[in-house]
C-alpha cells in the first residue's frame, strides 16, 4: 500500500536541511508520496527507511510493452480503480483482427484497412495500435506466412493469436524483431508457449476460463522465468467479462495479489459494428488493457478511440476550455465582445450569464493555462499582451464593426494598457458575473 506524506515524514531525518532542494522534510515527504521526487535526493536517509519505502512503491500492476520503435505500445501499470482517484496511465490499445485465412490481395487489403484506422482529434493523432493476426487456418505455415506479411506491410504492433505452440513458433520465427505479443498460453500449453516467448524475448498472454485458473497459470509462466504477462479471461458473455475484469483489477490493486498484477486483453469479435462499439467502450472504461476488434468501420473506431482518449485524460489537470471566440446566441457585427480566461469554471459562469442576458455576444477566451481571471492576472498570465495576442489570433477585428472590448471588472486596472496595446476602447464589465445581464442590457446598449 502506498505511504502517505506523513508516513514517509516519520522515516526521514527531520532536519529541514534543504539539501534535497525542498524547503522542509515534510515537503520532501509529500513530494515523494506523490512521486514528484526520488528518495535518493535525501542524503541522510536511513537504510531502514529506504527498505520500507521501496517495498511500498513497487507498482501493483506490471507494465507490459510490445512492438518496436514507433509501433511500440505499452499497457498496464494502473494504480486506481476510478480515474478521479489519480488517473489512468496507459490508454487501452485497440487492436483489429486479420485472419491468416486471407492470402495475397485480400490479406494486403485487410492489413491496409487496419492501417488506415488513424484519425486526428484536437490536434492529437489517435488510431488502432495493433494488428491481431488470428490463426483461423490452423496451419503453422499459413500463420507464419501471414505473420511475415503483416510484419512487412503493417504499420502497427503485432499480436499473434493461436492456441498451437507449433504455429506460434513458426510465426515468431518470422517476426521476433517486431516483438509481438504472443496470444496465448493456456494451462495445457504453458510450458511450451513460455519457452517460445522467453527464447524470443516476447511478452505472452495467459488465457484461462476462471480467475483461479488464471492465477495458477501466471505463477506457472512466471516459474518459467517470464514476467511480461497479459491476462485473458475466457467468459461466456460480456457481462461475465466485465464483472471479472473489475474483480481482477480490484485483486491486483487493492489486495496487491501479484498473480493477477498484470494488464488484460479482451476480444470483441462478434456482432455488428454497432454492437462492437458498445462492447468495446464498456471494456475500455472498465479495465481492458487491450481490446481486439473485428470491425474496420471508421465510424465505429472513431468513437471507441475518442472514448480511450477521454477516459485516459488526466483528471488532475485544471479543466480548460479551448481558447477561441465563442458565439452566444446569434451575434452580429454590432454585438458586444468581451473576454475571459480559459479556466472552464470561469468560462461557463460567464457563458451562462451572457446567455441569461439574451444579448447575443462574443466571448473571447484567452489562454491563461486554465486559471481564473484574478489568479491569471495576479500571476501575470493575463496581461495586455496576452489579450492583444488572442484578439489577433482569433480574428476579433473581423467579427465586429465597433472597437469596444468589455473586460472583466476584476481586472479593470488593465484598461489603459489594453487600450494602448489594441487601440480598442475598453469598457469595464461588472466584477460579479451575475451582474452581466444588467450590464449588457443597460450599459452596453
Amino acid at each position: 500500500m502506498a505511504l502517505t506524506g506523513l508516513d514517509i515524514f516519520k522515516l526521514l531525518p527531520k532536519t529541514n536541511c534543504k539539501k534535497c532542494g525542498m524547503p522542509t522534510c515534510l515537503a520532501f515527504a509529500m513530494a515523494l508520496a506523490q512521486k514528484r521526487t526520488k528518495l535518493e535526493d535525501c542524503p541522510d536517509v536511513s537504510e531502514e527507511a529506504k527498505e520500507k519505502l521501496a517495498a511500498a512503491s513497487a507498482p501493483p500492476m506490471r507494465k507490459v510493452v510490445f512492438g518496436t520503435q514507433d509501433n511500440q505500445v505499452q499497457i498496464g501499470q494502473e494504480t486506481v480503480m476510478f480515474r478521479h482517484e489519480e488517473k489512468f496511465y496507459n490508454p487501452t490499445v485497440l487492436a483489429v483482427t486479420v485472419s491468416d485465412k486471407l492470402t495475397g490481395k485480400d490479406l494486403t487489403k485487410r492489413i491496409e484497412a487496419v492501417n488506415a484506422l488513424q484519425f486526428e482529434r484536437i490536434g492529437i493523432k489517435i488510431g488502432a495500435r495493433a494488428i491481431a493476426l488470428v490463426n483461423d487456418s490452423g496451419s503453422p505455415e499459413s500463420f507464419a506466412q501471414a505473420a511475415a506479411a503483416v510484419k512487412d506491410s503493417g504499420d502497427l504492433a503485432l499480436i499473434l493469436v493461436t492456441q498451437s505452440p507449433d504455429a506460434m513458433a513458426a510465426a515468431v520465427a518470422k517476426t521476433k524483431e517486431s516483438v509481438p505479443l504472443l496470444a496465448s498460453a493456456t494451462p495445457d500449453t504453458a510450458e511450451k508457449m513460455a519457452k517460445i516467448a522467453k527464447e524470443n524475448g516476447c511478452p505472452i498472454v495467459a488465457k484461462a476460463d476462471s480467475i483461479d485458473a488464471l492465477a495458477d497459470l501466471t505463477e506457472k509462466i512466471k516459474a518459467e522465468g517470464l514476467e511480461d504477462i497479459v491476462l485473458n479471461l475466457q467468459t461466456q458473455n460480456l457481462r461475465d467479462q466485465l464483472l471479472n475484469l473489475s474483480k481482477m483489477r480490484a485483486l491486483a490493486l487493492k489486495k496487491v495479489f501479484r498473480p493477477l498484477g498484470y494488464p488484460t486483453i479482451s476480444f470483441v469479435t462478434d456482432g455488428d459494428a454497432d454492437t462492437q462499439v458498445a462492447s468495446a467502450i464498456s471494456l475500455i472504461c472498465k479495465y481492458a488493457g487491450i481490446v481486439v476488434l473485428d470491425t474496420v468501420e471508421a465510424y465505429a473506431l472513431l468513437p471507441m478511440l475518442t472514448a480511450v482518449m477521454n477516459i485516459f485524460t488526466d483528471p488532475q489537470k485544471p479543466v480548460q476550455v479551448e481558447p477561441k471566440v465563442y458565439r452566444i446566441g446569434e451575434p452580429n457585427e454590432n454585438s458586444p465582445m468581451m473576454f475571459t480566461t480559459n479556466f472552464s469554471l470561469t468560462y461557463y459562469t460567464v457563458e451562462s450569464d451572457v446567455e441569461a442576458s439574451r444579448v447575443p455576444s462574443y466571448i473571447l477566451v484567452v489562454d491563461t493555462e486554465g486559471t481564473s481571471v484574478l489568479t491569471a492576472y495576479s500571476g501575470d498570465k493575463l496581461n495586455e499582451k496576452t489579450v492583444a495576442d488572442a484578439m489577433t489570433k482569433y480574428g476579433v477585428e473581423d467579427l465586429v464593426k465597433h472597437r469596444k472590448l468589455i473586460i472583466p471588472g476584476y481586472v479593470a486596472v488593465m484598461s489603459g494598457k489594453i487600450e494602448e496595446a489594441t487601440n480598442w476602447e475598453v469598457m469595464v464589465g461588472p466584477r460579479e458575473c451575475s451582474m452581466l445581464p444588467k450590464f449588457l442590457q443597460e450599459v452596453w446598449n
Partner: protein
Amino acid sequence: MEESKKKKKKKKFTVRFEPSGLKIKVPAGTVLLEAAHKTGIYLSSICGGDGYCGKCKVIINEGQFKSKPTALLTPDETRENVVLACQTKILSDMTITVPKSHTLETSQILMDTDAQRFSELAGEVREGIFEFDPLVRKIFVEMSPPTVHDHTADHERLYLAIREQIDAPIMQTGFRVLQKLPKLLQSCDYKVTVTIGRRGETTEVIEVEAGNHHERNFAVAVDLGTTTVVAHLTDLTKVATIDTEATYNSQINFGEDYIRRIIYAEENDAFDEMQNRIVHDVNNLIVTLATRQKIDLQEITTVIFAGNTAMIHFLLNLDPTRIRREPYIASAGFVPPIRAAEAGIQINKRGLLYCLPSVAAYVGSDIVAGVLTTRIFTKKGISLFADIGTNGEVVLGNQDWLVCASSSAGPAFEGSGVKHGMRAGAGAIEKLTILDDGSFELKIIGNTHPVGICGSGLLDTLAELFINGIIDRTGRFNPNGQPRLTEGDEGWQFQIAPAGNEHQEIVITQADINNLVRSKAGVFAAIRVLMESTQTKLEDLDAVYLAGGFGNFLNVRQAVTIGMLPDVPLEKIQFVGNTSIAGAKTVMLSRKALKAAEKIAKSMTYFDLMSHQGYMEEFTKANFLPHTDLSLFPSVKSVKCKT
C-alpha cells in the same frame, strides 16, 4: 504613423481641486484619480482605480472630460456631474469639488479596541516560557577608572563590564560610538548607560550615554497589515504594553490587496511611493504614541515588525515583484536587523529595526508570530490556527510538524469590500442578534449611533441571517415576507439598522453576503486541504485558534455556524485577537523567542493552494452554509426555511 503619433507631445491642462484649492498640470487624457494623487489629495478608493468600489466620487464643476459608463452612479448623480475619478479622463482645464466624505479617512488614527484587549498577550515572557532577554536593552555600567595597574583600554574595559552583566561572546561597536567613547567615559567617571542590541550572534554597542538612564528604554511593535497597521508601545524594562494605536494602511489607494499594489508599483515604478506611504503610517503611529505617553523618540530603541511578506518588502523597499509570479519567491524571508533610520523609521537614530522571519511569499512573519503566540509548535496534540486578515492564513501542526497555507480570502471580515463594513472602532456594530420576534439587538462600540459593521458584527450578521432563514445556504436572500429586504442599486439589500437623525441606514447587500461567504469558504477550504494532506481528522484537533481584527465580542460559535471553523467542541476554540503583534512583542522581549520564531519559519511546510488540485473543490464545498458536507457540521442544526 503610429510612431509619430506616440511621439507627439500631449497637451497639458490645469486641474484645480476644491475646497483645498490645490492645482496641478497634467497631460491631456490623465485619469482624474491619478491627478488627485499626484496633487496630494486623497480620494477614497479601495479598488485602486479599478472602477468597481465606487468610492472615488467627485463633482465636476467645470471642464471637459470623458467618463466610462458605470453602474455605480445613480441617474441623479450623473445629472449633477458626479463622476468616478478613476474612470474619468481629463480633456481640458477643470475644476473639481472633492466631497467631504473623502477627507483623509485613511490617515485618521483609530483607537484599536482589539489591541487593548489583547495587549496582555506577551504573557509568554512574563510567564517565563521565554526568558526575558530583549533584543535591545539598556544597562547601567559602572567601571572602575583605569589605573597604572589596570591599563585596559576604554573600549575593552567597556566590553568587560558589559560581559559582567550579560552574555555577549561576540561584540562590535560602531565607529562613531568608538570615537566619542574616551571623552564620554572620562566626563562621567566611567558610569554610563549602554544600549546594546542583538544582531544574530553578535552584540552591538549601539549607544553609550553618560549617567544612568537604563529605565528609559522603549520599543514599538508593529503589525504591518494590508488593510490596517497596529502599533504597541512597550516599556522594555517592565515588560509592559503602555499604549496602542492603529491606522489604515494608506497604500490602500493603490489596491485593496497586496498583489494589486505590487502590480501598481511595478507598472508605475512606485516602489518608493509605496515605502513612503507605509513608513509614513508607521511614523505617524509612533509619534502619536510617544507624544501621548510623553516619551522622547530617542528613548525608543527598537522597532519590530510582523506582517505579510509583501508588506515587509514594501517597508524595506525590497523587490516584491516575484512574489506574484511563478515560482512565487520573496527577496528575503529572514531579514537581518538594520538601523531603523535606514528605512526612515523615526526612533532613536541608532535604534534597530527587526522583522520576524517569514515562511514563504504568501505566508508571512505575522503567521510565524501567530504560531509563536499560540505555542502550537510546542504541543503534542494537533492545533489549528487561522488568522483572518486581508488574506486568510491557516496553520496546522504540533511539535513534530507544521503545515500552512494562505487563502486569498479577501478583506471582507476586516470590513473592507462590504458596503457598510468598517474596522472595530466607534460606531461599529460589533454584535448582532435577531430576537424571536424578528427584531434586531445591536451592540455598538462606544454606545453611539451606528456607523457601520465590524468583523465580529459581520460574522454575527451572516450567521443570524442564515439561522433565521433570511438567506438560504447559498447565501441568497429568500425574498418572501421580509419587510427589511429591499431592492437597492446593487440588487437585494437587507436593513440592519434604519437611518436616524445623525446617521444613514445600515444595510447588508447580496454582494456583501456573497463576499463574506466566499471569504469564509476560502479559509475553510484551506483548513480542509491542510487537514486532508496530513490525514488530520476532526477529533484529532486539540485546539483551534482564531486570530484577526474582528472586534471585541467575537462569538466563536458563529464562526462554526457559518462554516468558517471546523465543528469542534466550542471549548476547544479560542479567539486570540491580533497574534501578529503579540508575537512581535514576545520576540522583542526575548532573544530565545526570536530563535524559536526562526525555527518555526524554517520548519513550516507551505502549501500553495493555487496549484493545489484539491483546493478549488474544497472551496466549492465550503461556498455553502455551513458546508456542502453537512456531516462536517453536526452541531449546526437544520435551518428554518421561510418560503
